[in-house]
C-alpha cells in the first residue's frame, strides 16, 4: 500500500549534545542535526579541556613531566606514566631493573582493570541500568586502596620514574593483590549474568554502529575498539615491550556473537573479557616477580642524547604513543602525544549517520573515549 500522503515537510532540528551532558564522558560537544529522532549528521566538537600538555612538555624537565602524564588519561594514569618512561628509556637506552619492570606490569594491569570497570559501569549507566555502575565502582575502590598503599594517591599516581619506579612494593602488597584477584574473579561472570546478556541490553547494542575491520584500521581505531572489529592486534603481543613476553594470555577479539562483527556489543564484550585476561597476567606476574633494586642510576638533571623516538604502549583505551624529539638539553624539544580517543573520534561522524539519539550515547560509551586525552 504505497502511502500517497504528501511527504510532510519536516524541519531538521539542530541539538547541542554537550559540552555539559550526562553521558558524553567529559566535555565533548556533539552538534546533532536530527530529523525527529534519527541523526542526520553528528559532528563532534572538542577542545574544551585543552591544557596545552604538549607545550608544557617543552618547558619542564623529563622528570617533572611525570605528573602531567597522569592527567593525560586519568582513568589509566599508571599506563600513561609507564608509557612515558618507556619512551624516554628507549631514547636514552636506560637499562631498567627486572623487578621494576614487573612492578610496572602489575600496576599497569591493575589500572587496566580499574579503567575497564569504569568503562563498563558508565556504559551500562548510559544504557539506563544504574546498578552495575555501583558494583563497578565498588571493585575499583579496592584497586584504589592497593594503589594508595604503593604510591599514596588514589587517582593521579605519579609512581613510575624514568629508570624504574619511585618506591618498592609495601609489605603484604602481593597478598592483598592476590586477595583482590580472588575476590574479583567471580564478579565478572556475575556482571555478565546481570547485564551483559540481558535481552534489552543486547537489543540496544547489537548491530549498532558497526565498524568493519577495514574501516577500523583505516580510521585509526586501536585497542579494544580495533579488536572489537575482529582485528587481533594487541601491542602486548604483536610488539612486546617490557616483560610482557614472559606472560601467556590470549588476545580477546570481537566475535559478532550477538549481532554483526564490530558492533557496540562486540567492543563492550572485548573489554569485559580483557578484564579476565588482566587477572591472568597479574596472577603470573605476582608468582614470577624477582627480588632486586627498583631504580636504575639516573642523574637528577637527566639529559638524554639528541634524537627522535616514537614509542607506543597498549593502554586500556587504545595505543598511547609518544613522539619525543630531544635536543640534548634538560627539556624535551618537541613532545607529541598520540591519544587513542582523539584518533577514534575520526570515525564518529561516519559511524553515527542514521542512528537514533539514544544510539549516539551508545556509540560514545562503546568507544570508551575520555576527554582529557582527546583535548590534551
Amino acid at each position, binding site marked *: 500500500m504505497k502511502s500517497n500522503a504528501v511527504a510532510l515537510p519536516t524541519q531538521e532540528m539542530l541539538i547541542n549534545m554537550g559540552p555539559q551532558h550526562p553521558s558524553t564522558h567529559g566535555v565533548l560537544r556533539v552538534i546533532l542535526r536530527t530529523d525527529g529522532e534519527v541523526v542526520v549528521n553528528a559532528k563532534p566538537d572538542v577542545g574544551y579541556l585543552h591544557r596545552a600538555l604538549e607545550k*608544557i612538555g617543552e*618547558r*619542564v*624537565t623529563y*622528570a*617533572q*613531566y*611525570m*605528573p*602531567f602524564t*597522569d592527567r593525560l588519561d586519568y582513568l589509566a594514569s599508571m599506563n600513561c606514566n609507564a608509557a612515558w618512561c618507556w619512551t624516554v628509556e628507549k631514547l636514552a637506552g636506560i637499562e631498567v631493573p627486572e623487578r621494576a619492570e614487573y612492578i610496572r606490569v602489575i600496576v599497569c594491569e591493575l589500572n587496566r582493570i580499574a579503567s575497564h570497570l569504569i568503562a563498563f559501569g558508565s556504559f551500562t549507566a548510559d544504557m539506563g541500568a544504574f*546498578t552495575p555502575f555501583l558494583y563497578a565502582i*565498588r571493585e575499583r*575502590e579496592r584497586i584504589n*586502596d592497593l594503589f*594508595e*598503599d*604503593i*604510591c*599514596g*594517591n588514589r587517582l*593521579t599516581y*605519579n609512581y613510575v620514574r624514568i629508570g624504574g619506579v*619511585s*618506591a618498592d612494593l*609495601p609489605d603484604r602488597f602481593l597478598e592483598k593483590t592476590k586477595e583482590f584477584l580472588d575476590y574479583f574473579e567471580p564478579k565478572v561472570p*556475575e556482571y555478565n*549474568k*546481570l*547485564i551483559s*546478556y*540481558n*535481552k*534489552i541490553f543486547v537489543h540496544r547494542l547489537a548491530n549498532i554502529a558497526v565498524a568493519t575491520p577495514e574501516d577500523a584500521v583505516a580510521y585509526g581505531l586501536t585497542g579494544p575498539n580495533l579488536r572489537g572489529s575482529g582485528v587481533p592486534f594487541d601491542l602486548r603481543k604483536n610488539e612486546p615491550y617490557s616483560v610482557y613476553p614472559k606472560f601467556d594470555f590470549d588476545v580477546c577479539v570481537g566475535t559478532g556473537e550477538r549481532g554483526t562483527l564490530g558492533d557496540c556489543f562486540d567492543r563492550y564484550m572485548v573489554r569485559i573479557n580483557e578484564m579476565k585476561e588482566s587477572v591472568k597476567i597479574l596472577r603470573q606476574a605476582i608468582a614470577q616477580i624477582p627480588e632486586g633494586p627498583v631504580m636504575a642510576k639516573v642523574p*637528577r*638533571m637527566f639529559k638524554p642524547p639528541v634524537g627522535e623516538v616514537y614509542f607506543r604502549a597498549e593502554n586500556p583505551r587504545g595505543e598511547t604513543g609518544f613522539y619525543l624529539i630531544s635536543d640534548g*638539553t*634538560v*627539556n624535551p624539544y618537541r613532545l607529541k602525544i598520540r591519544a587513542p580517543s582523539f584518533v577514534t573520534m575520526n570515525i564518529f561522524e561516519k559511524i553515527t549517520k542514521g542512528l537514533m539519539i539514544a544510539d549516539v550515547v551508545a556509540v560514545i560509551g562503546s568507544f570508551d573515549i575520555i576527554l582529557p586525552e582527546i583535548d590534551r
Partner: protein
Amino acid sequence: MGLKAYLYDIWEAVATTAKGMRITARYGVDPRETITLQYPEERWEPSERYRGFLYNDIKTCTSCTMCVRVCPVDCISLEAVRGADKKMVLASYDIDIGRCMYCGLCVEVCPPKSLKHTSGYEKASVDRGELILHFVHEDANQIKARVAKQVAEAAAKAEAEKAAKAVEEAKASGPVPDDGRNEAPADQPASQQAAAANPAKKDAAEKKPPEGAKGEPGKPEEPPKKGEGNTP
C-alpha cells in the same frame, strides 16, 4: 519473523530479566554487602605512604631551594638570608596547597628529608588565602632585620678585632709595609639577598605570592641557567 523466533524473543526477555533480578535481589537482601563509610563518624585512615598536605620541618630545612625548582606548578616560595655564621636562615617558607597537585616530587628530591607528606586531607576553606601554608611563623621582615643586625654586629666585631690586631702589629714591628692582605670584610653586606633564592621570587617580596601575576601561565622565568644545574 517466525512464530518460533517471536516466542523465543519473549522467553529470552523474561529469562534474562529474571536472572538479573535474582542477582539484585541477593544484594538487596544481604546486609553484609553495604560498604559505604559513614564519613564523619567512621573516618578513612589513609595508608602510611598517603600523599596529603605537605609539612616542612624548619629546623632541618637547609633552604637549598631544590623543592622550589623541581615543583612543576611552582607552588613553593622560599626566602632565605645568609646569617652571620654563613648558614642560611629561613625568612619565609610558604606552600600554596591550593595549586599543589600532591605529586610528591618535592618530597622525593629534598636532600635533608625535612619536607614530608602528612596524612591530612581535610582543609576545605572559603578563602584562598587560607590555602597557603606558612611554615615560618615569624614575619619575614623581622627575621631579615634581626639577621641583618647580627651580621652587622659580627662584621663590626670583626672590624674592631682587625683594627686592634693591626694596631698591635704596628706597635710590635714598627712601620712594616702593608702586605696587601687587606682582607675583604668578613662577608657580603647582609642586605644583599642570597643568590640561591629562587630568582622568580625576587620581586615577590610581600607575603602572598601574586596570583598568576606572571605573564606566562605557571611558567617560571626559566629553569636554572644551564651552568647552575647542580646543587649549589
